[in-house]
Structures are given as C-alpha cells and as structure tokens.
C-alpha cells in the first residue's frame, strides 16, 4: 500500500498559503522534507528537486487528531478497517485517529492491542489504539489498564455504553490516576434508556418511539464529576449532547476539576426532528437533540467549555441500518465531513438541520462570510491570539478566531490530551510534518461515490458543504493530493 508514495527525501514546498501558528494565521511558505517541516518563511524559492503546491487562498493547519473513531477492526471488517477508515481520515484532513475498543473481540488485552498496533504500523495515518476500561466492555471488572498503558494505550473507554457501575468507575479512576492515561466516558445511564432509540421529547412523544432522555446523560455526567472530585483523576467526556450537560461541565471546570469535554459534528449541526423521516441514518447514541441543545453546544464550543471536536465516526453496513428504528445500529460516519460541518456550524452559523429536505438540496455554504474570513486571514494585520479560557463568543468574535477555535479543538487540544508530540503542533520549523491544507473558500458535496469508508451511513450526503481539505501530509508524505487519497 506504500508503493506509490514518494520517498521521504522528496521535498515539498507549499506556496502562498496562510499558516496556523501560535500567533495566529500568517502568510508563509512552508518547506517539508524528511518527515518534518524544514522551514516556514515569508518567501521560499523552489529548488529543482522540490515539488511545489500552489496553495494560495488556503490555510495550512496541523493535521487533525480524532479522539473518537470506530474502525471496526477486528471483527467487523465489512463495515470498516484500519485501512479504509484511514483513507476517510486522510480525506478529512486527519493525520491521527483513535480506534475505539468496541471491536469483536473487545480491545481489552495485550494480544489484541499488539496485533492492532502491528496492523496499524504500515498505514501512514497514525492510529492510536484505545482499549476498554472494563473487560469485554461488560462493566464488571477492570481491563489490565497498566499493562495496556505500558504498550502505549493512552485512552481507555467502553464507548458505545457508559460504565454503569459507579463504584467500578471510581476504582478505574483511582487505578488509572498515575498511569498517565485518560479515561473517556460515554455518558448515558442505561436505566433511563430502556429500548430507547431517539431523544426523549417532542419527537419521540409524537412518533411513539422510546426515548433516550438527555437526563440519562446528565445523571451519569454528574456522578462522574463527583467521582473526579473525589479521586482527583483526569477524565474526558465524550460526545456531550445536551444543554444541561454543558452547564454541569462548565461548573466542574470552574471548580478546577481536571476534566475535558467533547462534541461531535453531528450534535452541533443536526436535530432530533430528522428522525421523523424514519431514516435510521439519523439514529445515534447519544441521540440528536433539540435545536436549543445544538445552540448550547455551539456556544460552549466557542467559549472553550468544550475542548475537543471528535467525530464518533461509526460505520455500519446497510444491513444494520435498514432495520426498524429500535434495532438499527446507532452511529454515523464523520471523518470525511467533520471539518466542513464544524466550519458551517461554528464559523458560518448555519441553521441546525431540522428536517430532511427532500425537494431542494441543503446548502450550508455562505460565500460572503467565507470571503470575509479569507480577507481576515490573508490581511496584513496579525490576529490576536486567543488564549485558553478567553471567550470566542464575545460580541466581536472574529471569523478567524472562530476558525482558530475549530482547528485547536480538532488538532492541538486532542493531541495534548493523548500526549502526542508529532501531531497537533502549530506550524513551525522543526516539528513533524503532519498537516493539512484547507481551502476555506471552496465548497463540495459528499456523494456516495466519494465515501471512502466501507459503509455509507453519512447523514451529510445531500448537503452542499463549505471548506475543502485539499491536501493532507503525514510525516511530509502527501497522503491526500487535490482531494484524492494517495495510499
């Protein structure tokens, strides 16, 4: 699979773009070779042996780092593999993803972790193998956390289901406290979710579908925040979806608890009313909620109450989706569309999608805003750096500061959480050349043919999306060139 890749001696010059640096976006040329960014200068002249990419009007961003990816290997290779998922990742600008442990067998022992790490090694996208908190994700006994941490596992989660037993979660937090790992929770108390398949509320009441109430998420979150307070262990909360969860997380952060929060692209862009079409592509856990929740998540994103945008990329074959709503598998694809959806939702403030538009296509682009963002970025003045905790939502939050928030939450922050030193670094000379080139003025559409996953359960397929990931480089190797995957 590596045969048609350039050798690492090959030099690449990215010319005419704006680069994402610690001090904001700067108009710079970038020279890559030998796996690293060799130079970031106002003007770099191309050598003869240099491949030049004209990227005028584009942004050079750290490659994205996904904290939450289902790659379905081992056990469900028909839905996705490390390889197919990595292709989707490269398309979406990701240079690193984190494979969740809800595989078959569950990734909960050294043998499975080692095997997955070996399988991941030749793939140019860095795949962090996550493992489950509890053996078999059964919520009964702990997985060998220390042994797995020693193999390089950085993130543990039973994702797909939360750890229901509070005392077990408490033990997990205590046990993991000094292992330099992060425990990530899927917050939903299943007691309140029996047979539930959609948000509990107006839509579930009208359709007579059993609900998964926001309360189920909030109750577990509240429990875990108390456990974090008592154990002083770090904890990460995955795919938060309700306005009240945001209030809880905000209060916990204000109290100084070592917690981080994540939202997904779909929870900041889609609403529960889509379920009224009975299209199971919109079924996901936690479920799509109300427009009010969507707005609360977006605000929390802009205010840094939310730290990370993660995809919860969850491929499912048609045979698992073309089922009654109550038994269809929950989850949706996310890697290829994550940036565009975040860009539309946060920067361009598109309306949350409420109903499946069967007549005309949905358009999430906004030419005039996209143009003013480009003007802002390529303007001579250097943007103010947005420090942690500073409000991006403040009345005059510039478009470029909103974009900065997105890039940080898709790269810098998740890399920090995982302790990755080669990923999620500001663009500067000397760091590993894991990066992507974003055409902010460009638009595109995810057609079925463009889906690189082995499954096609994307809810974003008939939507005109803003922002194109033009190129992705993994250790200076072009893995995506002009939106074509090169491995």
């Amino acid at each position: 699979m590596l045969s048609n890749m350039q050798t690492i001696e090959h030099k690449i010059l990215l010319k005419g773009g704006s680069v994402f640096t610690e001090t904001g976006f700067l108009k710079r040329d970038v020279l890559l070779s030998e796996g690293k960014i060799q130079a970031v200068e106002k003007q770099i002249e191309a050598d003869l042996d240099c491949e030049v990419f004209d990227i005028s009007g584009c942004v050079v961003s750290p490659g994205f780092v996904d904290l939450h990816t289902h790659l379905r290997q081992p056990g469900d290779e028909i839905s996705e593999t490390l390889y197919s998922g990595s292709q989707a990742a490269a398309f979406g600008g990701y240079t690193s993803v984190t494979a969740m442990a809800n595989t078959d067998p569950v990734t909960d022992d050294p043998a499975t972790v080692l095997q997955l790490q070996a399988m991941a090694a030749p793939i140019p996208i860095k795949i962090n193998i996550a493992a489950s908190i509890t053996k078999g994700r059964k919520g009964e006994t702990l997985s060998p956390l220390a042994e797995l941490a020693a193999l390089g596992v950085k993130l543990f989660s039973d994702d797909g289901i939360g750890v229901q037993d509070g005392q077990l979660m408490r033990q997990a937090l205590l046990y993991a406290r000094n292992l330099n790992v992060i425990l990530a929770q899927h917050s939903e108390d299943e007691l309140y979710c029996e047979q539930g398949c959609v948000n509990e509320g107006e839509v579930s009441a009208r359709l007579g579908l059993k609900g998964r109430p926001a309360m189920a998420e909030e109750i577990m979150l509240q429990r875990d925040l108390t456990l974090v307070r008592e154990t002083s262990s770090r904890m990460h909360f995955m795919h938060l979806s309700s306005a009240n969860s945001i209030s809880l997380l905000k209060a916990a952060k204000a109290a100084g608890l070592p917690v981080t929060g994540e939202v997904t692209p779909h929870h900041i862009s889609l609403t529960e009313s889509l379920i009224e079409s009975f299209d199971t592509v919109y079924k996901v856990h936690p479920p799509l909620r109300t427009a009010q929740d969507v707005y609360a998540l977006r605000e929390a994103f802009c205010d840094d109450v939310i730290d990370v945008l993660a995809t919860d990329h969850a491929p499912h074959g048609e045979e698992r989706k073309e089922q009654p709503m109550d038994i269809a598998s929950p989850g949706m694809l996310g890697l290829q569309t994550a940036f565009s959806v975040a860009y539309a939702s946060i920067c361009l403030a598109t309306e949350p999608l409420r109903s499946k538009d069967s007549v005309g296509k949905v358009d999430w682009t906004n030419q005039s805003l996209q143009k003013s963002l480009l003007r802002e970025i390529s303007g001579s003045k250097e943007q103010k750096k947005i420090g942690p905790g500073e409000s991006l939502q403040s009345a005059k939050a510039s478009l470029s500061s909103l974009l900065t928030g997105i890039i940080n939450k898709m790269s810098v922050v998740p890399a920090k959480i995982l302790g990755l030193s080669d990923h999620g670094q500001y663009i500067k000379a000397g760091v590993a050349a894991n990066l992507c080139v974003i055409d902010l003025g460009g638009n595109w559409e995810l057609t079925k043919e463009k889906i690189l996953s082995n499954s096609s359960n994307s809810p974003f397929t008939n939507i005109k999306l803003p922002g194109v990931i033009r190129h992705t480089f993994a250790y200076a190797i072009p893995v995506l060139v002009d939106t074509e995957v090169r491995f």
Partner: protein
Amino acid sequence: MTNVKTGLLDMSDISAVEIRSLIKLASFFSEVAKRPIPKVPVLTGKQVVTAFFEPSTRTRLSFEVAARKLSADVVTFTTATSSLTKGESIKDTALTLRELGGNLLIVRHNCAGVPHQIASWVDIPVINAGDGRHQHPSQALLDCYTISQNFTLTENDFTGLEVVIVGDITNSRVARSCVEAFTTLGARVTLVAGPTLLPAAPVFSANDRVSITEDLDGALATADVVYLLRVQLERMDKNAFPTVREYRTRFGVDRRRSALMKKSAVIMHPGPINRGVEIASDVAEQQNVLIGDQVKNGIAMRMAIIYNLLTSKYEL
C-alpha cells in the same frame, strides 16, 4: 390519501374532507354487506398482501375480509418471531412480497416507522395497520365512521362532540391516531391519564382541541363518547401504575361510573377488552357499548381504504 403511491401511513396525511369521503364510501360498503351476495367484483385480479410482523388476529382478519369482499386475492405473511430474531431483514421481506405480485401491502410492526420505511423501498401503496406506539390510522377511521353513525351530525362535522379517551395514552397508537382524527373532524378530546401514562413532552396539549385530566368522574359527565384504551401490559413501562386494582379504581369504567354518563353517550374500545380492568364485565354488555359495531364497521372502512388505494380512477 391523495398520494396513491405511498398509501395510508399517518392520520396527519389525511384531511377532514378525505376522512368524510371515506366515511361516505364505508357506509356504501356497509350496504353491500347486507346484499344476498355481500361482495363486489371491483378488485378482481388485484393482490393484497398482509405483512404482520407483530401478532394480531382481528386487524389482520378485518383487512383480509375487506379485501376479499372487494374480490381481491389475499396473501398472508405472518411471523411469530420477534424483530430481534436474526434472519431476513424487513427490507428483503418487503421486496419479496412485492415480487410475489402484491399490489398493496398492509403492514403491522412493533416498531414505529416500519410501514414508512417499507413504503420507501417498494413501489406499491402501503397501509399502516399499526406501527409500535405510533399510528393505527384504519382504526381511527373506523372509529370516526362508528361515531358518525351514532350521532345526528351535518356532513359528518364533529363540532360540539366531546370525546373522552381513557388509559395508557403514551403507549397507544390508537390514541395518537384517534386524537388526530377526532379533532380534525371538529370534536373536542379530553385525555384521562396520569403523568406516567402520558408522553414526556406535552405534544397532545399543543392541540387546542385537546385537554388532559386525571379526574375520570368529572370527564364522564359531559362526554358524548367514552373511548377506553386497552391496558397493554406488554407495552407498558414498569411501574406505570402500581397494581391492576389501582388502575381499575382510578381509570376503569364500572356501573357507578357508567351511571355518571349522559343518556346519549356511548362507550367505545379498540379491542380486545380486558374485562374487569378498563371496563367492568357488566358494563361491557350494555346497549351503549359499540365494540361490536366497531368490528363490523372496520370491515366496511377497510374496504373503503383498500378500494381507494387500488382504483386510481376513483376521486375522493
């Protein structure tokens, strides 16, 4: 009903005008039932398929009798297996039934939306014969027809009629369809149920013709129609009420409660009834209980629905 391709899935797809036309057509088919040969040859050569993924006897039989009285051929597909059992997907089943030459699919499933999903996969009309807790439109239509027979109304306008629906509203597809149908025709509806028997979100009270109370005695005094829902223990949440006895005490209609009703008021129930739970056995035998009429009218109304979907020339 204007959409001949998709069929009858939701009460919200049907206007008051369409409901009234169906009532008129159903009463014509009721006349047919009284003829020496109670059958019309209008659908000869058409094939109606009943696909019941959830056990049901009366609704399936009612549809099949209706189809036969229109001279259609009937193919029956039932499955005793629950939807959780692995095997052929509902999509493959639906496509197979279509390929067997079906002109109309009548679908029941224990999950909301399955008839809608099937309608999106096949190119023939689909009738929703009950999907989970969601909708049961043919039941609501036959109930409208039954009510229309028992009151003096102009042009089947239900304005001025007070309907009281009692019981487990949140788990009832009959309630969802009936509230929509009755209020569309102009009636006022009072739901009698406690918070555990009502949906978490106030979707019913959003309709200004609907009110909600826990006081059954009070509601009975002004009711024209008392519609009792079956206590569906199989669908009910744990602890929706403490005991059957307590349910009966609060929401069951016995002789005392029946005496609170107006002389002209009637009692309806979608069947099958739980004697001694939602309705006392002796009350069930009273003259003003229309359960038998509902079953009989079910055939005529389902003839009207099937006829309407399979004869494109007929304009409502």
